[in-house]
């Protein structure tokens, strides 16, 4: 049967057309995604990578809610200039507890993967509430509301930890029981800062990976 007469069959039969499209378009995805999902090195944490604490996870969810990843990448590429500017390049094993990943596609502001520990908590606090008071040329939005809202209102933190435990994150019963208490008395901005300060601390020079 020649190619075109085969095609005549397909284009006269809606069922065959649907099946053909599904089959042809699925191949590429299967070949790429299945091996990636089964590659252990991509789901094995580096030595210093740990799960997010209740406070850090809350901070991360605030980071997601405010769309920070729209302007800040979390991915230091293995390029001389990039390593010099931001620090050690990013390793896959540092992201195993990131659901979803936050690598970003645009750097309107600087990369944040190695921002942990670079600035003081107070600097972050002032910067988040009024960016232009510390960086004159900044075009970052101000986030004054983060200082007013209670971190515990961000969502049911013990439910979040339980959900992540189902997905394989090693939280203990104790972690989940104490989660609510951990968020008592702190504001959203504190949680976000805690997250920023632990970013990129999963790898230090000399680690094997």
């Amino acid at each position: 049967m020649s190619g075109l007469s085969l095609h005549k069959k397909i284009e006269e039969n809606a069922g065959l057309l649907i099946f053909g499209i599904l089959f042809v378009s699925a191949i590429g995805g299967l070949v790429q995604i299945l091996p990636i999902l089964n590659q252990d090195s991509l789901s094995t944490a580096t030595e210093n990578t740990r799960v997010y604490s209740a406070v850090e996870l809350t901070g991360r969810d605030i980071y997601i809610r405010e769309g920070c990843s729209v302007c800040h990448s979390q991915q230091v590429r293995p390029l001389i200039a990039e390593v010099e500017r931001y620090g050690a390049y990013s390793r896959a094993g540092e992201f195993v507890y990131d659901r979803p990943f936050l690598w970003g596609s645009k750097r309107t502001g600087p990369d944040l993967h190695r921002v942990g520990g670079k600035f003081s908590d107070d600097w972050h606090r002032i910067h988040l509430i009024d960016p232009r008071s510390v960086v004159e040329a900044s075009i970052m939005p101000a986030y004054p509301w983060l200082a007013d809202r209670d971190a515990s209102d961000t969502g049911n933190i013990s439910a979040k930890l339980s959900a992540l435990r189902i997905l394989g994150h090693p939280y203990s019963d104790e972690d989940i029981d104490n989660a609510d208490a951990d968020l008592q008395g702190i504001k959203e901005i504190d949680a976000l800062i805690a997250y920023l300060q632990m970013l990129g601390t999963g790898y230090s020079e000399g680690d094997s990976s």
Partner: protein
Amino acid sequence: MGTEIYSHLLIRSLYQPIDAFQELAKVEPSPMGVLFRYTIWLLLLPPIFSLIGAANFGWRLGADEPLLLPTNSLVLISIGYFLALVFGLITTAIISSWMAATYGASANFGKHVALITIVGEPLAIASVIHLFPDVFVNLLVLIPTMMWSMYLLYKGVPIVLDTPPERGMLMASSLVGWLLVAAVSLLGLSMALWTLGVGPLLGV
């Protein structure tokens, strides 16, 4: 017919483009005549302006410090710029005359060279802004000029190449497509060369 009336057309096209196109439609210029007596000189303007500007002030890509390159690399870059312009213009004219068969347009190659020259002329003149080598200021001047050139292309193709407006519009759009692809290829090529080590140092 010769190319004598052409210098007058080049000037007239700046203020009465439609009339100039109609006059051009009546003649059959020799391609080499147009190319060497007029086009080449117009194409020399942008590299010369940019050489003078860059040598004296240095290009400002945006950040504070201007990018100052040694004179001999500037000369090399200007020559490259000139060759790219000549290459671009001639290939556009060739593609245009190649398309002419499809669009029932005049196949006289000289007309295609002349038309593309008139279309590009505003840009060549506006490139005087290269004397002030700041990317933003250059964009500010060259983008409106480019819109004018595109307008000239859409208006000029049916008149000069003697084809119905319907087909002229199709042909002009095809040429716009080609020019967009050519522009972005140039951009991509220079980036690839740059990252591979030609040009100022990059930490890659």
